[in-house]
């Protein structure tokens, strides 16, 4: 296998549900071997609809998907032994124990790890004899992850892997995903946690209403966004009392009561000018907040389009 080829290739992909609702409206992206790629988006953005097409659970209404060079729906037998899947909601019989579930799944996977080893990876070994119905939501997510890892997959699809996990469980999962990536596994995950995408993904795409709004490395995506400065205007001062904003490199500003918010691509220069001005005027800027562009900005900016549209 050529290591340079893309493990996942998606071209102009579409998905339409029975009622005519178009959940995925022509998206394209590719994921290279050993990369962690995150699909980010609000609920209903089309993340799960997209991942299910990559997993081969349904045929696309239009466009093309290739996983490891094959059509995951039509050439299921060629793809499935090499992929691991974690659905958004685990589907396990509630009356089976953790160990029985893992053993059943191991029997359905070629070249499976020993079930106990998979449970060990996600820290569920001591819950082996517990019925699935008695597991917490987070434990169920971890069981699902263990099953996805049973076949030592080359490509791993994780649909909201940390939803329902506590902070510690989330960190454990992140470490596991990083370790898998380091050993060469390609990971495609969906999430609505920005820090998860920012911390884990080599590249990401933000989905909005079935389309890709932005894609790139986390740094590239945030670089397109302006930085932000906000502070309270001191008593007796008005916006007009500040140095001319346009000349400072402020892209836009808003005043909310006494709070001023400035957006700029030249954070250092604007911050310096504002602080120098305050120092000369001998005033204290309460609530001063200077922050670089973040994924959150990008995400909220895109989600807000919904309201504006």
């Amino acid at each position, binding site marked *: 296998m050529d290591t340079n080829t893309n493990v996942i290739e998606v071209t102009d992909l579409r998905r339409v*549900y029975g009622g005519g609702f178009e959940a995925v409206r022509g998206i394209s992206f590719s994921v290279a071997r050993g990369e962690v790629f995150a699909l980010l988006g609000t609920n209903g953005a089309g993340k799960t609809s997209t991942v299910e097409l990559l*997993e081969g*659970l349904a045929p696309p209404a239009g466009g093309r998907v290739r996983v490891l060079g094959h059509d995951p729906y039509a050439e*299921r*037998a060629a793809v*499935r*032994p090499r992929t691991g*899947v974690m*659905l958004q*909601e*685990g*589907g*396990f*019989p*509630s*009356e*089976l124990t953790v160990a*029985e*579930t893992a*053993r*059943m*799944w*191991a*029997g*359905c*996977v*070629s070249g499976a790890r020993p079930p106990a080893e998979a449970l060990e990876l996600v820290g569920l070994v001591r819950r082996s004899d517990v019925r699935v119905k008695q597991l917490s939501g987070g434990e169920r997510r971890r069981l699902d992850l263990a099953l996805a890892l049973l*076949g030592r997959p080359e490509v791993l699809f994780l649909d909201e892997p940390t939803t329902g996990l506590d902070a510690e469980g989330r960190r454990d999962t992140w470490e596991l995903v990083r370790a898998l990536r380091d050993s060469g596994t390609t990971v495609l995950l969906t999430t609505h946690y920005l820090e998860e995408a920012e911390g884990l993904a080599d590249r990401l795409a933000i989905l909005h209403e079935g389309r890709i709004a932005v894609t790139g490395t986390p740094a590239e995506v945030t670089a397109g966004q302006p930085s932000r400065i906000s502070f309270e205007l001191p008593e007796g001062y008005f916006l007009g009392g500040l140095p001319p904003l346009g000349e400072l490199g402020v892209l836009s500003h808003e005043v909310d009561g006494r709070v001023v918010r400035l957006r700029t691509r030249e954070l250092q220069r604007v911050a310096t000018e504002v602080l120098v001005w305050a120092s000369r005027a001998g005033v204290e800027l309460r609530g001063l907040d200077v922050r670089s562009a973040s994924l959150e900005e990008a995400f909220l900016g895109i989600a807000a389009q919904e309201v504006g549209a």
Partner: protein
Amino acid sequence: MSAMADRMAAGRVKALARAELTLFGRSKGMIVTAVFVPLVLPVSVRTVAEDMDLKGTGLNVGTVVLPGAIGFSLLFAVYSALVGVYVGRREELVLKRLRTGELRDGEILAGTALPAVTTGLVQSLVLAVACTVLLDVPAPKAPHLAVLGLLLGLAVCALLAAVTASVTRTVESAQVTALPLVMVAMVGSGMTVPLELLPDRMASVCELLPLTPVITLIRGGWTGELSVYETIGPVLTALAWTAAGVFAVGRWFRWEPRR
């Protein structure tokens, strides 16, 4: 290569069937409907059969009760039970999860069905032995027909259970959606009243019902009174239902809950 693929497929079905068997053992409701109902109902049929005028039909109480009892087993232990199992696994998203793996669709349906089908098979053997001992039924004169009938019955019941599950939304409503076939089969497939006792025109319609050929073949297996020509009709009818079932499942089976 293909032998290896077959072995792997068999391994997957076995792993799934083993889990299903565990679940079967943990569901008291399933055990009661699947094991006791088919073994108890025939007793009531026996009292009815003893009042029937069987002269000139070539039948006796034993050859009326035994095929009927096997029919009950197929209807309750296999068909009704499986409708609930398929719907339950679908609503718990188990079927969807299984479909993300290497199992093929047919393997998922087969593995899930195996415990119920096995129950039906074992019950039929128990019933055959019990009737032979308790009702003085002689040994079957054409056992191959009885075996053929039973195997076709198991296939038709499992397939129709999957079809019925496709139109069933919840496990609770499975008891309702399974009812039409159960009622029709009990009345019209020769399980309680042999077709020989029905008016000719009604009998020829009833011959086309899904379980009628099964009962006819099993009964013929014991009486030995089916000619080769008389065997072809029921076998073709049963095969037609099997083919229709395969087609319907492939086309309409629902693998995940409605959104």
